[in-house]
């Protein structure tokens, strides 16, 4: 049983809206794969189709090489948290985990183990209706871990959490991936995945825009750009523009220069006697890279209507 999710040509239409359009990707073991796209891009629909909850109009999704609906004890193959609020409010957290464990014949000790692992502690004896969002997320994660599955899927797990909660989940996902599990995490905010994901699947309007390692994406987005710090912003801009560079301001004393290399920028500025306090190769944030990517993708789609980059 490989720790993978394979999606091949998945398509889903709700009425006249195409939610997922010919989507193909593979989620591999040992890394956290971010699944990013704006709200309504089709992330949740894709996850539901992977779990056999929604029926695809075309294509297939395989978990460890098999369709989810053919799995006999699916909790041991894939653990998922699609919606942290999907708990009966009158049921104690522990009982929620207990029925779930019964459904796959899992031993009772697993319930205690995941309560511990998710840090639910004594809250497990309380009714889920009184839980804070953070506690619900922990309960959802406990449920996902119940079968100790090699594949994990979380839909917007950090949405609405406090920084402490975000850090906890990020650490948990990293450690789960480090054990050799495949972890797929969706988010509509790229910044939430900053420092959390190794690999990215970017999706827009149901189509795959990018399937890339985070490093590669950042490198591509930062490519050839130089960040310059100078008190004499206006002079620097004039000098560099005359040399054919594209210059944008990114702060009161910061500029981002596209075109010439850092050496060439230093040469130009010193030649004209413009003082500067710092120069470095620009490292794009994930957010910037994402903006860049989606902008290109939209243009590309408008022109060719074809395959995503």
């Amino acid at each position, binding site marked *: *049983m490989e*720790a*993978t999710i394979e999606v091949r040509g998945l398509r889903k239409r709700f009425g006249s809206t195409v939610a997922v359009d010919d989507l*193909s*990707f593979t989620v*591999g*073991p*040992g890394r956290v794969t971010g699944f990013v796209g704006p709200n309504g891009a089709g992330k949740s629909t894709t996850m*539901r189709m992977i*779990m*056999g*909850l*929604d*029926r695809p109009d075309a294509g297939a999704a395989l978990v460890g090489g098999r369709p*989810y*609906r*053919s*799995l*006999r*004890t*699916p*909790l*041991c*193959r894939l653990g*998922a948290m*699609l*919606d942290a*609020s*999907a*708990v*009966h409010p*009158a*049921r*104690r957290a522990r*009982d*929620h985990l*207990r*029925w*779930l464990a*019964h*459904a*796959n*014949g*899992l*031993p009772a000790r*697993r319930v205690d183990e995941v309560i511990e692992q998710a840090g639910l502690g004594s809250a497990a004896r309380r009714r889920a209706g009184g839980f804070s969002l953070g506690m619900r997320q922990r309960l959802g994660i406990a*449920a996902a871990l119940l*079968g*100790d*599955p*090699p594949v994990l899927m979380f839909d917007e797990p950090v949405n609405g959490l406090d920084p402490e909660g975000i850090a906890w989940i990020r650490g948990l996902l990293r450690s789960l991936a480090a*054990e*050799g*599990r*495949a972890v797929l995490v969706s988010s509509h905010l790229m910044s939430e995945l900053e420092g959390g994901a190794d690999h990215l699947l970017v999706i827009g309007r149901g189509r795959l825009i990018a*399937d*890339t*390692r985070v490093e*590669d994406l950042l490198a591509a987005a930062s490519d050839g750009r130089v960040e310059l710090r100078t008190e004499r912003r206006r002079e620097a801009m004039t000098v560099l523009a005359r040399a054919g560079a594209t210059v944008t301001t990114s702060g009161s004393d910061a500029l981002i220069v596209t075109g010439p290399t850092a050496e060439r920028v230093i040469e130009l500025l010193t030649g004209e006697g413009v003082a500067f306090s710092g120069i470095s190769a620009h490292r794009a944030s994930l957010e910037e890279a994402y903006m860049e990517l989606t902008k290109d993708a939209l243009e590309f789609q408008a022109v060719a209507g074809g395959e995503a*980059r």
Partner: protein
Amino acid sequence: MTAPAPPAPPSYRSTVAGEARDGFGRLLLAEWTKLRTVPRWTLTLLAAVVLMVAVAMLSASDSGSSGPEEKRSPTAQLQIIDLGHYTYLPLAGDGSVVARVTSQDGGGAWAKAGLMIRGSAERGAPYAALAVTPGHGVRMLTGYRRDGAGGGTATAPQWLRLTRAGAAVTGYASADGRAWRRVGSVRVDGLRGRALAGMFVAAPDEVEVRRVFGGEIISGKPGDTTATFDNVAVSPPAPDAAWLDRGGPGGPAADPALDGSTRSGGTFTLKGTGDIGPDEFAPDVTKATLAGAMIGQAAIVALAVLFMTAEYRRGTLRTTFAASPRRGRVLAAKAVVVGLASLAAGLVAAFASVLLARPLLESGGIAPPPVSDPAVLRAVVGTAALLAVLAVFALAVAVIVRRSAVAIAAVLLVLLVPEITATGLPVAAARWVERVTPAAGFAIQQTVTRYDAAIGPWAGLGVLCAYTAAALAAAAWLLRRRDA
């Protein structure tokens, strides 16, 4: 698909996959855990029991209006009628009686003219009878039941023969007195030694029920019938025995125009009024005691619906299907769990109702039949089964409509509206409404075959089961087809 994949680390293997088990039993356990861990659901189940028992006690303490002194006649206690006219000779042991019914006149489709061997002339005595009827062929009758073996379209004139061997009595019919066909054989408990053999006529009451909204006007008059017999022979013939008569109450030939027998040569003419059979107007004490099911069903239906719709409303259905992707099995497990829970609650409620109402009824001068009586036991256990089937029906409807309020309202309307509208419809239409709607299931509570019974107990429950099966099939189909 652009980035070259880094060397893939070894895949993780679940440490508990080896212990995990799949199976319907696990699923039942999971669904049962769901049911019992929501406190308001267990309370609803408890409420159903309390409501049913409370209704039973209330109706029992209310029903003693006739006063404790009034003695009820033995036939009334047995809820039977034993009237008509009987002309007989003694029959010392085994033997037979034969006669030809030459004509039969009046009394309706169930008017009876034929032969009877009975233990004694006392009312309520055990008997076996073979009768020709205008509308229901030749019938073998016993035990004061409405119906018996036989049937067909044969009418008078008809040859009939009844033979007795111990407690076993067998009936034969013939069109010509030569070629006989066997109609049926019955064992008459209590038929020992000396008995009586002869001819009888009987006719059910003519009941007219007129419905006005909110009530009904029932007018009944005893049916009367006349029949002639010839070629009468009782064998072995009893020496020196004369034909005796048993007519309606008040002695033989109370009203010679309607009741009596005349003999001219070998031809007997019998006139009689009233039936030999179940009392169609007898109060159904057991059914009245179990009437709380009409109230209790509301709680059961609500529970069954919520057990399903809560999954839709809270989004846990996705969790359920994530753990058990085989949706038909999930539905089956839910049906079994909610059905068994309702059955258990129903058994407690029905037995408690009958047992607790008993002393109250007795202090009111009514002698309810014992729980061990087969009909009562069937009504009690049947009430629990009825609630179980109703729960499954409600569950299926909940799957179909997915909304608590809509599902509860729909199921209760389907169950209650026929009962209410039936009182405002013409009788024939009302019967059909009570026969073909799911409310027919309540027929399982009948212990007395009354004039207003629309459908038999088991047939009624069968109708509800058929609706439930159809709803369940639709629910399973939708559940598989729909996105969760």
